[in-house]
């Protein structure tokens, strides 16, 4: 089986600082991969590289075998990588429905003239996009607030809308940057179910950055641990939990018996 996303020896320097080095990962379809590490370890940098917000200093990223080097962010999105943000970045002044429809921009091919003259191609495509967007909102139980301004939604709903909007770009790989940030335990549990169902329903790979260990350990099949821009461990949740290097990165030193590891909170 070939991986959907194949990242080899990826690295980037900011001035003299090696923010990320020798980062390798193969992600397969339908996989949920976790990316964890202390603050400043380079997790969000990985996402910024994958979406071409930064261009790498070294290494390569291939999506379905095609290199993304030199592509712009919007081209990477078009070829199938979507993301959400640590600090929510919705278009706050426009409606919930329009937020989703903005992301479906590339699915519509009508021209300016067709729109101004209101030809059938315009109506059909807009209507189809609207239906798809409403279906997506329904997945997140948000069809009732479609006309509200995105900025007026409560926090949890804004997080869900960000995921819905990212899915509207028809990604093959979805990057979630701290989806559970600011959520309480019951919301986090609900989010876990949502993430799993998204994966099953849309048949995509998901990479997520998260500090909430219950979520990471609960749904990721594989976890990578970053520290100071380097991968210090990878494996199943069980392996990571018991890896002494990981414990050291998080806690500074081993527990006296050296076995206890990270507790799922």
């Amino acid at each position: 089986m070939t991986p959907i996303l194949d990242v080899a020896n990826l690295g980037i320097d900011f001035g003299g600082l090696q923010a990320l080095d020798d980062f390798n990962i193969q992600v397969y379809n339908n996989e949920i991969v976790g990316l964890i590490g202390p603050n400043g370890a380079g997790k969000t940098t990985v996402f910024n590289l994958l979406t071409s917000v930064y261009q790498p200093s070294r290494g390569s990223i291939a999506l379905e075998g095609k290199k993304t080097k030199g592509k712009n962010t919007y081209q990477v999105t078009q070829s199938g990588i979507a993301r959400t943000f640590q600090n929510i970045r919705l278009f706050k002044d426009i409606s919930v429905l329009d937020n989703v429809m903005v992301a479906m921009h590339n699915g519509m091919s009508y021209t300016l003239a067709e729109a101004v003259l209101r030809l059938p191609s315009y109506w059909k495509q807009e209507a189809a996009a609207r239906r798809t967007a409403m279906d997506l909102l329904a997945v997140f139980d948000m069809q009732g607030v479609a006309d509200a301004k995105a900025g007026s939604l409560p926090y949890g709903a804004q997080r869900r809308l960000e995921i819905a909007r990212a899915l509207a770009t028809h990604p093959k790989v979805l990057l979630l940057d701290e989806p559970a940030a600011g959520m309480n335990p019951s919301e986090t549990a609900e989010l876990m179910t949502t993430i799993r169902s998204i994966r099953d329903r849309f048949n995509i790979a998901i990479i997520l950055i998260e500090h909430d260990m219950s979520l990471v350990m609960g749904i990721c099949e594989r976890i990578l641990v970053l520290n100071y821009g380097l991968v210090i461990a990878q494996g199943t949740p069980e392996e990571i939990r018991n890896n002494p290097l990981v414990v050291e990165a998080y806690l500074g030193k081993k527990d006296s018996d050296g076995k206890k590891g990270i507790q799922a909170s």
Partner: protein
Amino acid sequence: MTFLYQVINGLQVGSIYALVALGYSMVYGIVNLINFAHGDIIMVGAYCAWLAMMKWGAPPWISILFAIAFCTVLGMTIEKVAYKPLRKSPRISLLITAIGVSLFLENLAQLVFTANPQRFPTIVTLPSIQLGSRQLSATTIMTIVVSVFFMVVLSFLVNKTKMGKAMRAASEDEATAQLMGINVNHTISFTFAIGSALAAVGAILYCSAYTQLSPLMGVMLGLKAFVAAVLGGIGSIPGAMIGGLVIGLAESLTKGYISSQLADGVVFGILIVVLLIKPTGLMGRSMNEKV
């Protein structure tokens, strides 16, 4: 009747200001630039129509299409050549460049067409309407109707099409818009194209009303439309429309009831008052600087 007459005159000039103000506002919304060359695009549009009609003998509708097409291309070219290379520079560099482009166009026009004003031919020859003791010209009615039509089309474009949604998304958050698969360069280009096309329409309506054109005609018109955009809340599309109409009415009523010489003073007085009392304008969004 005099009052109604002044109001209709105000709406005429106001709807021209509104068309021009839309160009300022849309461009500001998306690249945070007060495009001071926008007024001069109006002047170029006026000369295009004049050239086509008076020098080449083209029928009015072809001349109008030519002016719109030329301005659209000119607006996009200015963006590509002058503004795009500076997109990541401080905003003041962009502003100075815009003033440079403006001076360039004004002086180029003086070189090519001389500084003497030219007479603009009549496009519509319909009978005027009697309003009490006053005559209301067909041009007045046409100006209001055409402006309203273009504003309706623009509202539809901005609110109901993917291009409009891309514009609104890019004006709110460029980086995120890119992550939604939107080609922001195209969107910016598109915004300049629409703004410049509206400027050309404004040019023809303006010249029809005042029947003359000169290389510096865009300066005052551009400034007043800029005041209209600020009054409405720069960056806001409905704001630009309302701002334009309010400025037009203020000007016309001042001329009618106080003094013609005070009209410009009132317009710029409004700018000062807006900046002092409500700098975000009537419909502008509050400026939360991102941290």
